[in-house]
């Protein structure tokens, strides 16, 4: 982890997190603060947007602007805020149900649009806040409250989906390794375009399968395994691994972001422009109607 431009306490929120003790989301909160601190982003210039879920409560626990939105809709909400004020650093935080379930379409479209957003998904493979139903990343045959006879659905592979959707920054962290995660999040924030950081963030209350020890036994770091983040096919292969679980940066490619291509943003963020536009243009529109 690079040295911090701003101390981590800069981002201490108004109240303490009410997550269950040892919930993986504590690690994500810490990593996000570190990432912001390492880049020296002032809390007033940062906007954290979420949906609904235990993980989506995060914006309430960090000192920054925040919107705690609707379930599954953080991405379009963040999109609007970003395009209205491109000077803000916009981070989206949420859960697997929120982002990969109800919100899947929004996320994938945002990826192909290459909006300048960093999306951190606390993937605990369960619906935590609603007390333990199967999520889109719950494994086949796994028993949950909603699948008492075993889950009949194949889990979704978020990294493979992101790669297929043309996401330009695809990474995976683990709540047991805050330093690595902080680096990945900071990388995403620096990346020009959409960045996905999927995080193994154990739910200690409702997921007794995908626990800290479960991950500790299986994770390995891509950067230590000689992986080349420019190699899409290799990234896809790594995303497909299920015995050992790679963490780190899977893929990165630089392309123009949506904001780069949007003509109306050429003169700066809309929120900073005068409310009244071009009166002459208006009058010529009227003239064309006569």
């Amino acid at each position: 982890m690079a040295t911090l431009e701003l101390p981590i306490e800069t981002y201490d929120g108004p109240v303490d997190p009410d997550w269950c003790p040892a919930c993986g989301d504590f690690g994500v909160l810490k990593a996000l603060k570190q990432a912001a601190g390492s880049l020296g982003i002032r809390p007033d210039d940062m906007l954290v947007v979420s949906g609904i879920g235990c993980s989506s409560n995060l914006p309430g626990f960090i000192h920054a602007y925040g919107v705690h939105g609707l379930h599954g809709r953080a991405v379009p909400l963040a999109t609007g805020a970003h395009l209205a004020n491109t000077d803000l650093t916009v981070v989206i935080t949420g859960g697997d149900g929120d982002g990969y379930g109800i919100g899947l379409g929004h996320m994938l479209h945002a990826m192909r649009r290459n909006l300048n957003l960093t999306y951190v998904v606390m993937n605990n493979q369960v619906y935590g806040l609603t007390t333990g139903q199967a999520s889109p990343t719950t494994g086949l045959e796994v028993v949950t409250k909603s699948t008492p006879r075993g889950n009949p659905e194949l889990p979704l592979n978020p990294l493979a989906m992101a790669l297929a959707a043309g996401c330009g920054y695809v990474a995976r962290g683990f709540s047991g390794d805050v330093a690595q995660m902080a680096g990945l999040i900071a990388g995403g924030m620096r990346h020009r375009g959409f960045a996905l950081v999927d995080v193994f963030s154990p739910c200690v209350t409702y997921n007794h399968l995908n626990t800290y020890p479960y991950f500790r036994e299986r994770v390995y770091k891509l950067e230590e395994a000689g992986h080349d983040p420019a190699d899409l096919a290799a990234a896809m292969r790594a995303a497909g691994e299920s015995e050992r679980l790679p963490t780190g940066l899977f893929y990165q490619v630089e392309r123009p972001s949506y904001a780069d291509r949007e003509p109306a943003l050429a003169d700066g963020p809309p929120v900073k422009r005068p409310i009244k536009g071009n009166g002459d243009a208006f009058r010529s529109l009227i003239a064309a109607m006569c």
Partner: protein
Amino acid sequence: MGALSIGIGGAAGDGLARCGDILARTGTRLGLHAYAYNSYQSVIRGGHIWLTLRMGEDKVRSHGDHLNLLIALNQDTLERHAPQVEAGGWIVYAADRLTCPERLPGKDVNLLGMPVKELLKPLGKVPPVMQNSVLVGAAAHLLGLDPAVLEGVTGDIYAGKPVEVIAHNVDATRAGHAHARQHTAALNTGWAFSRTARPFLTGNQAMALGALAAGCKFYAAYPMTPVSNILHYLAAHGPDFGMVVKQCEDEIAVIHTAIGAGYAGVRAMCATSGGGFALMSEAVGFAGMIEAPVVIVEGQRAGPSTGVPTKTEQGDLNQVFGASQGDYPRAILAPVDTADAFGSVAEAFNLAERFQMPVIVMSDLALAEHYETVEHTDLDWDMPIDRGERVDDVAEADGYLRYRLTPSGVSPRALPGTPRAAHIAASDEHDEAGILLSDVFASPPMRRKMHEKRMRKLEAVAAQLPPPERYGASRPEVLLIGWGSTGGVIREAVDLLSERGVVAGQMQVKYLLPFPTGAMLEAIDTARRTVVVENNLTGQFARYLRAETGHRAHGLVLRYDGEPFTPGYIAERAQAVLTGRSQPLALSEGEARECAYHYIRSRLGDMAWPATLRRVGEHVYGEPAWEARLEGRDDGHDMGLLVIGADTGAVLALHHPIPRTQEAAHGHA
């Protein structure tokens, strides 16, 4: 002479809209008022399209009940509309393509069959749609429109097309005009032609312009009839005003994107129709909860569900009023005509920002898509802008409370980026600082107070809204009450009733929420009878009115077949209410004919037509019925008898004719 109505009929792809456009623009450039309504279908090619253009020297507020000039682009149009042309009127068509059987036109109706091919011959090989320009030229002559202006408009309308296309069209109108002039005199319209042009535009365009004038910097949309044109218009012109125009993957994304932009501090708008609004509804309450400004245009069309997507209706009032769970502050405006569509959008932004809430502007297909002339002053670039109370800097860290419990309910807003004002805006209930009440810090009384604070904002909104506008007699025998887009047509109905000796008045409701209860009750008190006029089946507004005032209207004038009102339709039914007659539900002869057409076209193809209709009693079919005699379109041979229930509309029987060969055999036996 007053206004004249020109009907143009054909199939999708026949280039009909352009015909209407050229005629209308020519008239409006010459100083006329105009109103155009296009009745079309959800099909890219084919079907039956029917455009009505009404023009005159005074303000025209509806497409009217008359037909003075028919331009028929195909045989179907002749068959269906020739009988509707009024005495003294004209039928213009390509005589070398279509035939207008004698039995069709009424008395004193003139035919102008144009030798289109011959007139086009000098142009060389041109596509068949070129007939349109010939017919338009002829119509322009009949209407007494200056051919020079006609040529100029034609050039403008085809601007951007290859030069030879423009030239051919100009030549074709000229040829049509000249030929008509040679063969007949122009109508005696008595129009003086001031030659001062007014803007001629749709409700959609008025709204788009209203957004631009209000400084809207963000427009999100997903295509949907009847509001897609707002997207097209703003995508083309918005960036010149610094406006980001974003097409999203669906309406849920649309509204969240708009709310995100509104939250971040720009004026943001989106538009959709009923189905898209249903998808947005969860988010409308969200905007109310986090107190983010956003303007949403709901362009109604005939429902339920996908319904008749290219037809009009005012059927979404229940939906818009009921949108989203729980109680939250918002305003609902329904502009009463095209000019008001401009102003309402601009006003919506002021309300949205001042009171930090969603504001919904209800339009409908008729308002969104019909063209109308408005005054230049109706489209005011310099309208007042009220951005509401803002906090631009906070001295002390932690000193800012985003949701301060103020007496007015309005809590000054700090945009993200404001120094020392970082806070969270949550869809969960929260306290003054934004801290969630749903989690460990639950507090029923704090919840109560925050809920009351939000709702308190509506008191101030109610206090500042002007009362509904009133038209007509001050102590009317019948007060027509309408809402939204029907402002113009109801006003014409009031005039018509007055002409017929009925003392009538009008209250047109624009502000649905907060509702002008007091003003409505006062108005109702002045009238002997009230009639609510609306474009839907259940009388949604009449129920709404009763909910807000306790008043039950004495009668309803409803229409829900997809077509907009005409003044005559309203006047006739309002008179029925006054005389205690009930509204007719059985199929009229004209409707039965259309039902027969539908059956024939969908089941039997286009060889037959319903030549005559006869009403029969219920003894045979269990309900009164219409018997339509089907005849061959070519030679009028008997093609059978179609029986349609007058009450249910059901096809009760199709009696095939005795086959011709057999008949012949009989004859010879």
